[in-house]
């Protein structure tokens, strides 16, 4: 085990994969000379040279489309979006080309591309820079969607993503980049679609992913001390494929569900999960499934308001827990 930050863990995965496979190439805005807008790729240009670490112009549609085209020939591009928010200008390339080309060709073409970058609010950068499109991406069959919550998972899932033969959308979080964690050494991968039980409990199931796992764990600890509640926290790790079985198993044990996500509730990942849970485990439920998410409006700038009210945080998770336990 080594202690690495989430950022370092991703960098380690990228570096190890670059060394393992000559077809892996990293492209994106400011990834090379500038060392990465969020320093994920820091030092990599120096180490691996300009063929493998490539600075692109500010042309998301152009370079993501180019990466998709190259991946059809067997290159494994890992494309950085400075923010996932900028996927909107490359949306056509992602949903029409990456997601569809295998299908429309009757299975003749594979598209082994990874698109990665941060997708989160909470940094007071306003509505244009705070999008969390995991629900929108997961809505498109053909795409895989990965949302790691900690350093060890980020590294292992990134390695899986790069080796995967389907297009993988990898959503990170700027507020997690500096968070350290224990990361196993060596070539450790994690399969997609295997949720983690981040905390065991019997009284309530929280389903979360990404940074909301951190909020949920904090809230669960508080509820243990204050109310003696044993709360189970499930970290989905990937949205598509989705580990429904782990969720249902937990529901069968706790009979109560709170979904915590950094998503606006309208057509969110959580609304999808709630639909599945009620379809498959209706008789297990002792209370309605509740959700804690982002207040349904564009991301507000006002720093304290965004943090305290609009986004999920431990206090709001606690309030959600108390509501489900009522």
């Amino acid at each position, binding site marked *: 085990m080594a202690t690495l930050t989430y950022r370092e863990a991703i960098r380690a995965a990228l570096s190890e994969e670059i060394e393992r496979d000559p077809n892996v190439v990293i492209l994106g805005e400011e990834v090379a000379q500038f060392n990465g807008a969020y320093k994920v790729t820091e030092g990599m240009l120096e180490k691996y040279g300009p063929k493998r670490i490539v600075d692109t112009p500010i042309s998301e549609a152009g370079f993501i*489309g180019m990466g998709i*085209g190259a991946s059809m020939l067997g*290159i494994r591009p890992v494309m950085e979006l400075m923010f996932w928010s900028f996927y909107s200008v490359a949306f056509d390339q992602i949903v029409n080309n990456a997601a569809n080309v295998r299908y429309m060709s*009757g299975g*003749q073409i594979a598209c082994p591309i990874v698109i990665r970058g941060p997708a989160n609010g909470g940094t007071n950068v306003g509505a244009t820079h705070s999008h969390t499109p995991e629900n929108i991406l997961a809505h498109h069959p053909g795409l895989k969607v990965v949302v790691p919550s900690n350093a060890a998972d980020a590294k292992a899932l990134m390695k899986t993503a790069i080796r995967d033969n389907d297009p993988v959308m990898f959503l990170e979080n700027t507020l997690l980049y500096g968070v350290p964690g224990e990361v196993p050494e060596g070539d450790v991968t994690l399969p997609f679609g*295997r949720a983690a039980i981040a905390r065991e409990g019997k009284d309530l199931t929280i389903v979360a992913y990404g940074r909301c796992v951190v909020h949920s764990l904090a809230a669960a600890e508080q509820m243990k001390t204050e109310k003696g509640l044993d709360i189970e926290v499930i970290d989905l790790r990937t949205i598509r*494929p989705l580990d*429904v079985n782990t969720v249902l198993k937990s529901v069968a044990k706790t009979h109560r569900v709170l979904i915590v996500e950094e998503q606006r509730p309208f057509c969110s990942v959580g609304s999808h999960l709630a639909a599945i849970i009620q379809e498959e485990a209706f008789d297990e439920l002792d209370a309605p499934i509740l959700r804690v998410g982002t207040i349904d409006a564009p991301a507000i700038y006002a720093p304290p308001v965004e943090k305290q009210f609009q986004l999920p945080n431990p206090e709001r998770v606690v309030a959600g827990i108390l509501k489900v336990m009522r």
Partner: protein
Amino acid sequence: MSKKPSAPAETGAAPAVTPSLPSPHAKAPANAALTAEQKIELYRKMVRIRRFEERCLPVYNAGKIGGFLHLYIGQEAVAVGACSLMGKDDHVITAYRDHGHAIAVGMDTKPLMAELYGKVTGCSKGKGGSMHYFAPDLNYWGGHGIVGGQIPLGTGLAYGVKYQGKKGAAMAFMGDGAVNQGAVHEAYNLAALWDLPVLFVIENNRYSMGTSQERSSAGELGKRAEAYDMKWYVCGGHDLYEVRATLDEALRRAREQHKPAVVEIDTYRYRGHSVADPDKTYRDRKEIEDYRNTKDPLQIFQNQLVFEKVLTDALIAEIDAAARAEADRAVEFAEASPFPTAEDIQKDVYWETDQAQRTSEGRIFFNNID
């Protein structure tokens, strides 16, 4: 939808006036190197494309082809000329008017027709349709329905070829309307910035649906290359020799020096934008007739090859009959083929879920609600 077309034979119907005979491009190196057999094959390919597409019309009108059907009739010399220059590391990608390129790269017409029918024997197993033909084994990467969306992909093919150290090039085809898409300009910049071996081939048939070039585009289309310091060519697309002469030079430059270029090719489509276009509001009948009568690519090349004594009347008739029979056989094949099953709907979505052994876990890849 247009009513059943009167289907005049589109070659030999009118006394064809060839602009100049022999073709001034006959002596270009790419053409001078052709054997008589190769020339006959080029002619045959154009005839096969036309007969195939003509055969689609009654099938469409009988309601057996769904959605859109964008015919390439009138533009055949472009795809056949361009694709005839491909070496083993050269790649092609185009838009939705893709039947001509598909036949030009060597796809069999039976699965092409079956794809139009939506049959499981189609080239994309009935999952792509007319606009989405693919043959990666022939370096043909589609068949793309979003105007201009294929151009970054074509640039990526060139990036891949160069990254892997191969001496090839990609030809990314688009229409005259596509040059106004932002993604095309992003791709131009990337290609020029990084010296990618890609040719951006504009098939300028003068209209994007019902909007003429004059009403949609400022300035000369090919000239936009200059803003990116790219070489550009403009040439006629009616004389197959001219297409080959121009693209041969551009392709050599791309392969040998990794230099991209824009190649604007003047061409014309005889049919409506798609078969559903009544074609009554935006251009004159006379304009279409003039093109057919004076610039038909099949007739021009036929005249040239007769002049060269490569084609005889007997051979012309034989090629035509064979192409018609081939189109009929494609229809028979499509008719006799089954549709995909309901189970097929969720195949070919993910590479992974099509494998015997999955790498991911998780029960839900697909959310099936019944």
